[in-house]
């Protein structure tokens, strides 16, 4: 307990300088704005805002990026409430009751419930994060190559089986991600692999370039079909962004009930905000005394899922920070941003650089408070941004995407890479092949292969090592169980 308190103070020391608080505010505000833009969402927000950290000292850059991530999470639901267009899948549920409330002139209440529930969910999630990171990180320090390989296999399998759509396509996406991760000079043997005569590929593919392609440029391509789309937001009809006491009482229990649930869902690799929010909505509807109000503007229908979503985004940081394993597209982009800043999340980070690891955690705590302050008084001016037509917004996103690509390595070859990956991302989405398993495999590919080879080398080439080690065997069994569960679910629904 003392150690946790000491570490948290160490983190707050890093986070609570005037400069860092200013950047938490700016990052949170920008994250909210981009996360809010219709059809773009948090992953795009984090991807296109990476360049704002260039030139900063690493600590401030890290804190700014966390604020962007958190802001994007807050912003995602603004568009759901005001224009019935979720920024990403985890904000879909907020449309169910948020939009009917806005249509009946209670947009201010819906925005306030969503901001307060996000805050409460975030704070409860942070408490979980603070208490869980240290034990998980210490446990993970015991992992050898076999355990690491099996863990990554489980994380990827869970990502595929827990997401919607075809399992086979999920595995194909994972395979494509792994393929991309093997391009370049093999670090262990020095052999060139899959260069296809292109010398620029020798250092491998920078996955941040691919992510900007997938999450910024591909998203713009998807919106090309509807360029004249423009949303109408009537600022006068929003009303006061605040809650009456009776409304607060109505939302209180749903927030408390669903925050721990969302956090636990977030900790599981692969199970992201979408599962957490849908689960919370179903629970709230089943325990409500007035289930008939759900879908027509029930406060609990916003409070529960919104708290759950933000608690889930804190939970997702447990595997991200302690094991270096992201569980969703947004956390994958976040991992990319952290690695670009020279931070390699994993158990060693907590041991060797506690000030960085705890600085991130503390900055999220500060960010949560700052974002509540941004999202209540500034809600009305912020949602006005939803009025910006697609035809103005899309060139700006493209500009930021290409600018960010250049700043990564100052290489003109990256422009080819970002363009090809954006086209690839667009075609994959047309074929309903999911992008998150591909991105996750691309990021984890190097580590997965290294663990696989090291484990086999230790065992003199015997694959038995993966089942002989109890922890490794447990992860493999979990991977198989999640696969069987998903196959049975698919069979039932077919």
């Amino acid at each position, binding site marked *: 307990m003392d150690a946790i308190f000491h570490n948290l103070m160490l983190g707050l020391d890093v986070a609570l300088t005037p400069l860092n608080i200013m950047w938490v505010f700016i990052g949170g505000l920008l994250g909210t704005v981009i996360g809010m833009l219709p059809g773009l969402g948090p992953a795009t927000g984090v991807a296109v805002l990476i*360049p704002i950290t260039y030139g900063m000292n690493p600590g401030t850059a890290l804190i700014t990026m966390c604020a962007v991530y958190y802001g994007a999470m807050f912003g995602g639901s603004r568009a759901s409430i005001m224009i019935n267009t979720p920024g990403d899948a985890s904000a879909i549920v907020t449309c169910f009751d948020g939009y009917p409330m806005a249509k009946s002139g209670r947009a201010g209440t819906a925005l306030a419930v969503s901001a307060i529930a996000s805050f409460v969910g975030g704070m409860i999630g942070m408490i979980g994060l603070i208490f869980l990171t240290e034990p998980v990180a210490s446990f993970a320090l015991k992992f050898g190559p076999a355990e690491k390989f099996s863990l990554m296999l489980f994380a990827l399998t869970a990502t595929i089986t827990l997401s919607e759509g075809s399992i*086979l396509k999920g595995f194909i996406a994972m*395979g494509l991600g792994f393929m991309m991760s093997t391009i370049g000079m093999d670090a262990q*043997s020095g052999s060139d692999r*899959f260069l296809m005569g292109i010398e620029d590929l020798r250092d491998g593919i920078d996955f941040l370039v691919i992510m900007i392609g997938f999450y910024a440029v591909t998203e713009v391509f998807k919106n090309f079909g509807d360029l004249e789309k423009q949303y109408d937001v009537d600022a006068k009809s929003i009303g006061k962004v605040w809650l009456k006491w009776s409304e607060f009482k109505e939302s209180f229990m749903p927030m408390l009930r669903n925050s721990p649930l969302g956090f636990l869902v977030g900790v599981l690799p692969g199970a992201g905000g979408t599962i957490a929010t849908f689960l919370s909505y179903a629970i709230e509807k089943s325990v409500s005394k007035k289930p008939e109000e759900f879908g027509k503007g029930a406060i609990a229908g916003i409070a529960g899922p919104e708290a759950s979503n933000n608690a889930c985004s804190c939970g997702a940081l447990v595997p991200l920070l302690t094991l270096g394993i992201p569980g969703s597209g947004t956390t994958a982009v976040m991992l990319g941003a952290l690695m670009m800043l020279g931070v390699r999340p994993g158990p060693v980070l907590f041991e060797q650089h506690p000030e960085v690891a705890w600085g991130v955690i503390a900055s999220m705590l500060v960010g949560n408070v700052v974002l509540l302050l941004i999202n209540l008084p500034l809600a009305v001016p912020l949602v006005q941004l939803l009025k910006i037509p697609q035809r*103005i917004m899309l060139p700006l996103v493209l*500009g930021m995407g290409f600018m960010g690509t250049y700043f990564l390595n100052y290489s003109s070859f990256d422009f080819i890479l970002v363009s090809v990956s954006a086209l690839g991302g667009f075609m994959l989405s047309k*074929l309903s092949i999911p992008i998150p398993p591909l991105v996750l495999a691309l990021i984890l590919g190097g580590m997965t292969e290294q663990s696989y080879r090291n484990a086999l080398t230790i065992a003199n080439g015997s694959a038995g090592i993966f089942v002989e080690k109890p922890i490794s065997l447990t992860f493999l069994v979990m991977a198989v169980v999640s696969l069987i569960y998903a196959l049975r679910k698919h069979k039932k629904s077919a």
Partner: protein
Amino acid sequence: MTKNLQSGILAVVIGLAYLVGTFNIPVFDAADEVGPRAFPYLIAAIVIICGAALIVNDLRSSERKPFSWGFAANSGVWLRILATIVIGITFGLVLDSLGYLIAMFLFMLLVSSMINVGRLKQNLIIAVTFSLVSFIAFAVILKLSLPRGLLSGFLPF
């Protein structure tokens, strides 16, 4: 052809091409015992098997909806995608010689003219503002080294 059939064929083709590439990876004696080919073999097998399973499942399925890429029906979308790629790659090629400010101005002017059709004044404002603000923010305030190109002798900062 259905979406699943096309996905399956694509996966098998990519998997086979990757397998051929794996055969061509040079293996040195000094390399680790497992070698640089083992993991790629595993990946190629996963992709080919999943692709083949997708094809078989699709051919056995009773509901087979044909899938179209919409090249003709959505030609505007595909042309814009093509144009974005051409403009983006050209931007990369001329960035050093023209300098960040001019290249970014041209990039923004071209992409916004392609998306925000027929509103030249708005597009000029977007292009000038974006290139100037980003240059001042990154090159002047954050001191990133950005190419100045043609304007290197004229810029006061």
